[in-house]
């Protein structure tokens, strides 16, 4: 008991310790992580796994085999252009993973930079920045993304910017409030008194102390990014045509061939669902471990729990009386 307590009170720096905790307490989240890792592996080794290889960055079409139902040769069938859907999905995973990982990192980075700078510098800078973010958040995120997408044009690079900038600016709020509470803490004031400049305090106190929140942010924005990519594809914005993307094939062919060739929509739809689901589970688990306050389920007072406590109390009282 005491051993367990000790390990949970320590600031968890150890990656291994975190993983064991995830495995022990959050099986579903761990499973979500495994699924995500699988997707990443598929993305990395796409060239080795895919039955139909990419040539010059394109998957060649075989019009003779267009829109075939799943068979042994094409386990997921083929699309309207005769491209093997399984290969398309595997290469699409690459796009999703690149987008997901880079957008997650970039948006968290933006949040952290804006939030921490706003909190640490404070004063007029903070005031103005916060008013700006207030205004920014009044414009629905989807609209901002559409405008940005029109501004930057199609392509992987602009997709990364569009998917991370609005989220990053919105997420800076949470980071800022956490950073402010660190900044106002006794140890940060003490550091200031000892001569620590803004930058010193940012690196040595603020960042280490908001790290759990940053990790939570990272884990939670992954699913949203992938979903948003698909949605933007639906609205006609996306990576370059030719780059395999789940969202693109789901929109361009899955929808129009929904009745005649439902398998074209099924595979990317399911893939997006599974990946977002896994990311959500993983994010929830990470949140529960890093921020016990938000944890649902545990620690609430249900009737059963109170009943148990009451029973124990009565039993001990009885034991005392008889003694």
């Amino acid at each position: 008991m005491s051993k367990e307590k000790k390990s949970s009170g320590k600031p968890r720096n150890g990656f291994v310790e975190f993983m064991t905790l995830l495995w022990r307490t959050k099986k579903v989240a761990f499973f979500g992580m495994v699924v995500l890792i699988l997707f990443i592996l598929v993305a990395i080794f796409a060239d080795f796994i895919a039955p139909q290889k990419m040539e010059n960055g394109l998957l060649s079409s075989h019009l003779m085999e267009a829109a075939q139902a799943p068979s042994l040769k094409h386990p997921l069938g083929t699309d309207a252009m005769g491209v093997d859907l399984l290969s398309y999905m595997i290469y699409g995973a690459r796009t999703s993973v690149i987008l997901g990982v880079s957008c997650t990192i970039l948006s968290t980075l933006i949040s952290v930079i804006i939030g921490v700078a706003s909190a640490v510098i404070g004063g007029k800078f903070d005031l103005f920045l916060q008013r700006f973010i207030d205004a920014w958040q009044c414009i629905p995120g989807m609209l901002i993304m559409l405008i940005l997408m029109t501004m930057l044009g199609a392509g992987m690079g602009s997709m990364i910017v569009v998917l991370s900038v609005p989220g990053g600016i919105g997420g800076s709020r949470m980071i800022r409030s956490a950073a402010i509470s660190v900044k106002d803490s006794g140890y940060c004031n003490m550091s200031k008194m000892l001569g620590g400049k803004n930058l010193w305090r940012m690196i040595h106190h603020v960042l280490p102390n908001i790290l759990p929140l940053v990790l939570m942010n990272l884990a939670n924005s992954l699913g949203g990014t992938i979903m948003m990519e698909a949605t933007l594809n639906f609205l006609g914005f996306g990576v370059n045509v030719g780059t395999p993307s789940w969202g693109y094939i789901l929109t361009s062919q899955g929808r129009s061939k929904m009745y005649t060739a439902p398998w074209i929509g099924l595979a990317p739809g399911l893939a997006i669902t599974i990946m977002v689901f896994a990311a959500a589970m993983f994010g929830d688990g990470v949140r529960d471990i890093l921020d016990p306050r938000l944890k649902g389920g545990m620690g609430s007072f249900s009737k059963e729990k109170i009943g148990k406590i009451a029973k124990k109390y009565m039993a001990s009282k009885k034991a005392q009386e008889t003694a």
Partner: protein
Amino acid sequence: MSDDKLKSKFRPDVIDPVEKKLMTQEGVEMPVDPEVQEFLGEDIRVREPVPPTQSPEILVVKDLKMHFPVTKGLLKRQVGSVKAVDGVSFTLRQGETLGIVGESGSGKSTVGNCVMRNLTPTSGQILFDGQDVTHIKGKELGEFHKRLTMVTQDPFASLDPRMKVRDSILEGVRINKLVTDKQEQYDLVARMLTLVGLNPKFSDRYPHEFSGGQRQRISIARALAINPAFIVCDEIVSALDVSIQAQIVGLMMKIQEELGLTYIFIGHDLSVVRHLSNQVAVMYLGKFMELTSSDELYEKPLHPYTQALISAAPIPKPKVDRQRERILLTGEVPSPINPPKGCNFCTRCKYATERCKTEDPALVDVGGGHMVACHMVTGK
């Protein structure tokens, strides 16, 4: 004998000087446990007042005022000011301790923060070692903070939970690049931890592994690591258990003797402040009511407010405590935004006259360095 057992033996009533005096008055001999004495590592006596003009003046504060503006409305119109500190003057010699006592909200911590220059005073002057530090900033302030530092109240907030003890202690050293060699830094940490009575092995641990008293010792070690000449102790024992309080106070005295430090010791526990200080100032609504040597203050309190405070302090001897006369203060502390016109204390003072309500008494020396701000005492 284990630490715990010692702690349980180490009751505050054994060392409390007020108690000691009362007991000797009653003819009871005061038992001083030799083990307790050993544990503290120093003589348990009220310190001798250092005769004036013995050591050089290190800190001179003249008519210090700190007013915080009160604003209202959208346009932040100033409608008044909180007079947190309103005209405070004192002089502190090297190696001495000035105790500041007062209720919460009396402005005692603000005095500390002004001296630390965490706040820039509205008016007045602060001279540190002959140098005017009232308005310095930037580099000069940095240099100033190498010589003067602070230990704060809450031991749970003052250490970064994600920093090892070693890094916390070394923070000031690293910021100011006082010691750059890694091995020397480690040695310094070990020395500091030993000085504050902790095992040097603790330097790799995180703050949550320590108790409140131990954390406060680490805070002290952090303050000492930059080798300051002056420490402002802002209620450093208020958040601790009584037994731990005595340990920390003892430690502070030991360190002062070893290193020749000067302290401003801010607190609301009269007996603790008395134990440590040469001079004690009693603060009420931003003003010093009485300022004198600590023994004089407790033996011959002149200001009605001081008398009330001393009578309100519990004496850890129930018999004596029940028998003595209590001066109960009635009414509320007036708002520092709108303090009374005359003497700040006149609304609650039972001796208050018409003069007290109109004329603000000055802090006057009534003999032997005993300064009082009261018309009834200074007479005329």
